[in-house]
């Protein structure tokens, strides 16, 4: 069964790659699905969508291969059928989401990946924490989905009132919007709704609180959620709708500022976190902030290029983290250290991932981060740009700290760590090479990205011009400063030992555990809801006299309402 899943995963990966090489822009026949509302089950092979699908397929396949060995210890407690079923459903739904050309189809798969994330985060359901984290992920993202659903229906309502015979079609809606058939008022409501949905799924402030808790999931699932599937959905959605909503004056700045603020906030949080997986979680939120800011600069290429590169190095980092936790039996970085010698394969691949995350030339994260900076500069978003440059420095610091705590210094773990089995090492190797060279593909990526998307501003960028442009730009200084930060920190830590605090740091734990107090905000509403429920319950006394009284009150209330409005 397990190897069958691996086979399915790799066949899927092959098919998604085939879509990239042969399919982009090809028409796909649509089937009439719900005639009563003129909904078609329609797919469209847009450049953006096909790449998101390919990322989901390929990284999904590697994660499944990795799972074979990684999930073995859990198999006795939790029969693995559920795991592999949900994983395949997760990857498949993400692919369908990315290829959908129908808002209803998109919404359905959007919710299915939400459900899959719930079920997979709560996979080890014997632990109450895992159950709670899964529930939280589902509910918090669904808060954003309120907006998405209303936005979808607003567009549907307008399109069908205009007499469209395919009112759910994404491409036709965009075309209508670009031709000025949809008034700005309608677009504004939809734009707000879609942004809310994307903020929920892509874990942007203030809905970022679920993602660090989602670290209760098995690490392979974290890799899937963070690199291949769930969180990419929000960025994809914004990129896909970009030309339509760019007409709304506040939409692009809103996206950019939300992204930049989230990026900075969570990068600072990552600086104080002690749990390896949670550092990676914060870094994911932060990097997603970069992508959102890229969209805010109206640059589809920059944000999607970063999405591709981030998917590769973040999957790599998570799978490495999985191997480390597997070997050390602890998630706290303060109990790791010195793994450089005992786990050489993991060490080198993790180092590549760290450098890519920190945006060090010539690793893949560097190129796309720089592209985002360039786009912001061209778009004159100087405030956002300044915030993100600051974030880049913090990113260099926290990723370097993460690497040093884990691999350098003296071993602090009690276990005997060793390199993982080949089922786990192969995906690491593939992704490590990917993180080194994926930017070389920029030529084909930029060419294909805009295909099938007539209104998206995607410029062709050749490899040579990318290199020349990047290395002659003043923004190269950002990477330079990041290198300096890492050299300084590295020298210091080499002399004084890795930054392990002497005692417990309660304030840091409080701030990171509550996600900079964002959790308290949502916790407040939960408590408020339960309190109101309790108060309402008091009126539900079960006493027949009171029940009759309520009947009378109801009658009087209805009469009063009529008198007031009639």
């Amino acid at each position, binding site marked *: 069964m397990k190897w069958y899943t691996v086979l399915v995963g790799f066949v899927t990966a092959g098919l998604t790659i085939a879509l990239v090489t042969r399919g982009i822009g090809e028409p796909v026949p649509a089937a009439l699905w719900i005639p009563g509302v003129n909904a078609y089950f329609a797919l469209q092979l847009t450049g953006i969508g096909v790449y998101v699908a390919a990322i989901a397929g390929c990284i999904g396949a590697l994660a499944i291969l990795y799972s074979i060995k990684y999930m073995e210890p859990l198999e006795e407690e939790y029969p693995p059928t559920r795991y592999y079923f949900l994983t395949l459903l997760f990857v498949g739904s993400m692919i369908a989401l990315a290829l959908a050309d129908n808002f209803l189809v998109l919404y*359905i798969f959007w919710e299915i990946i939400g459900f899959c994330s719930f079920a997979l985060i709560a996979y080890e359901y014997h632990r109450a924490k895992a159950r709670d984290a899964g529930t939280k992920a589902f509910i918090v993202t669904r808060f954003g989905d309120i907006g998405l659903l*209303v936005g979808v229906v607003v567009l549907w309502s307008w399109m069908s009132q205009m007499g469209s015979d395919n009112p759910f079609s994404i491409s036709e809606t965009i075309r209508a919007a670009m031709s000025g058939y949809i008034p700005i008022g309608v677009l504004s409501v939809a734009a707000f709704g879609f942004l809310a949905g994307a903020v929920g799924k892509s874990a942007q402030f203030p809905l970022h609180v679920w993602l660090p808790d989602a670290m209760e999931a098995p690490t392979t699932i974290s890799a899937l959620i963070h690199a291949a599937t769930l969180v990419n959905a929000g960025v994809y959605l914004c990129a896909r709708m970009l030309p339509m909503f760019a007409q709304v004056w506040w939409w692009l700045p809103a996206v950019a500022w939300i992204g930049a603020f989230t990026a900075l906030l969570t990068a600072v949080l990552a600086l104080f976190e002690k749990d390896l997986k949670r550092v990676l979680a914060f870094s994911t939120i932060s990097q997603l902030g970069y992508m959102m800011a890229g969209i805010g600069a109206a640059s589809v290429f920059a944000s999607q290029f970063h999405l591709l590169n981030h998917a590769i190095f973040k999957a790599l980092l998570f799978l490495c983290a999985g191997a480390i936790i597997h070997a050390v039996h602890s998630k706290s970085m303060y109990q790791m250290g010195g793994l450089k010698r005992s786990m050489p394969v993991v060490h080198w691949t993790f180092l590549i991932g760290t450098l890519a995350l920190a945006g060090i030339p010539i690793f893949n994260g560097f190129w796309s981060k720089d592209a985002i900076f360039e786009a912001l500069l061209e778009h004159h978003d100087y405030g956002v740009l300044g915030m993100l440059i600051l974030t880049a420095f913090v990113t260099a610091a926290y990723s370097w700290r993460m690497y040093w705590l884990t691999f350098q210094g003296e071993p602090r773990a009690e276990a005997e760590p060793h390199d993982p089995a080949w089922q786990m090492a192969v995906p690491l190797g593939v992704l490590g090479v990917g993180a080194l060279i994926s930017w070389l593909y920029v030529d084909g990526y930029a060419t294909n990205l805009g295909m099938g998307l007539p209104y998206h501003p995607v410029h062709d960028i050749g490899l040579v011009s990318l290199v020349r442009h990047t290395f002659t730009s003043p923004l190269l200084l950002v990477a330079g400063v990041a290198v300096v930060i890492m050299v300084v920190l590295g020298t210091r830590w080499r002399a004084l030992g890795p930054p392990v605090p002497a005692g417990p740091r309660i304030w840091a734990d409080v701030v990171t555990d509550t996600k900079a107090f964002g959790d308290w905000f949502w916790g407040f509403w939960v408590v408020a809801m339960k309190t109101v429920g309790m108060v309402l319950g008091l009126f539900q006394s079960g006493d027949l006299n009171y029940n009759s009284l309520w*009947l009378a009150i109801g009658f009087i209330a209805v009469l009063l309402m*009529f008198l007031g409005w009639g």
Partner: protein
Amino acid sequence: MEALLPLVILSGGALFTYLVGRLSRSRTLAGFVAFVTVLGAAHGVYQGWQSLEDGTAGGWPSWTATAPLQAYLVTNYLGVFLAATALLLTGLVAVYSMRYMHRLNIGKFYALLLIMTAGIVGIGFAGDLFTLYVLFEVMSIASFVLVAFEREEWEPIEAGVKYLVISTSGSLLALLGIALIYSYTATLDLSAIAPMLAAGAGGPTMIALTAMIIVGFGVKAAIVPMHTWLPDAHSAAPSGISAMLSGIVIEAGLIAMLKALVAIGAVDFGLVLAVLAIVTMFVGNLIALRQDDLKRMFAYSSVAQMGYILMGVGLALGVPHLAAFSGMRGALYHILNHAIAKGGAFLCAGAFLWLLGTRDMRRLSGIGRRFPVVAVAFIIFALALAGTPPFNGYFSKVLLVRAGVDVGGWGLFMAVMLVLNSVISLFYYLGAVNTVVFGPVPEDGPKSIKPLPFMIVLPIVVLGVLAVLLGVYPEMGLDLVDPAAEQVALAISWVFR
């Protein structure tokens, strides 16, 4: 004649089932007879549908009614919709109760079940207010007895009495309203009231009788604050009956109210219903958050779901030129989806109750894992009720949101409230799933548990499959819903033109 046929079959079948149950004392046999009766009635309803499609449909009696108090049934799409939903649920509950119910008084149980269904079917086909009221009472009286059916315990008796008192107060209010209407119009024919009433009655009278109709039928439809009887009755009733009550009886109350309101027309009550709808969904959901009793939680969630349905009705009646069709479509489709999902949820809760003898979720913790089929169905129903694709609830919510968006302004606000409420509801639905299926098994729980009988699992599976099918292919439901929604929308726009 087609309209009368299902009523005759159901009433006759009730009598026969009682005799069979009394004489044989076999649950299987009585249940089987009841099931066959339901099939027969369904055939009758199907014939009615066919005659509507052919355009040969008529009423009963077929000669033109001249006397105003003539009992009078009309074959119509709304009735077909209500009857189909009711018969689906009744048939499955009949199968379920073959093992769930005790052998004692089994004949009475099935007879009452069929009479209650006859009342529901009659509400759909009623052509004048008097018939509507009489059949509404037939449904109500049968349901009082069914709630208190397990009479050797105190809880069902108490719940039954509360239900009886509150519901009868409401019915009397509705009857008073109907009497007022009759005093002004000298007719009770649903299609003839509106113009005569507009000519005869003044503004204050109209307001008074509209309020009486809303509150009177609203008691049965569990509109807050007239919902107080519901949590007790739905949790204390035998689980099959809980499924019926939540799945179709309260909805039948709403349909009775809708028919009466459309008939009297002329008062702008859309906004009133909208306010009631918002209050209803919030109160239902927020109180449900705090329940430990599984069936009570589902009962409160039924209140909330009635709020969603009422929102569609309110939008349709309040802004007929924008939302008459889309609001009715959403409301009726949600009735169908709710009947399937909530019916299934109550049957699952009943299965757990049958196994462990408790409804307390802390005691039921982890029971689902021992019965994977029921557990999967339970998860499907919970997600469907929370409106999660690809299970059936989401589509009707999309339609309801559409109605709100079509209206714009406060309609858009209501749409957002509806989706917000479905997120709030996810808290307790997921909470129930987390406890009942994934929670830890209590240490002092029973070591060995008897297997679930096939007849209890079968209806749950059927409803689960339907919940998935209607979610993946919503057109199936639209075939049933759309003609009914069109019919009501036409009537609304005719009355409110």
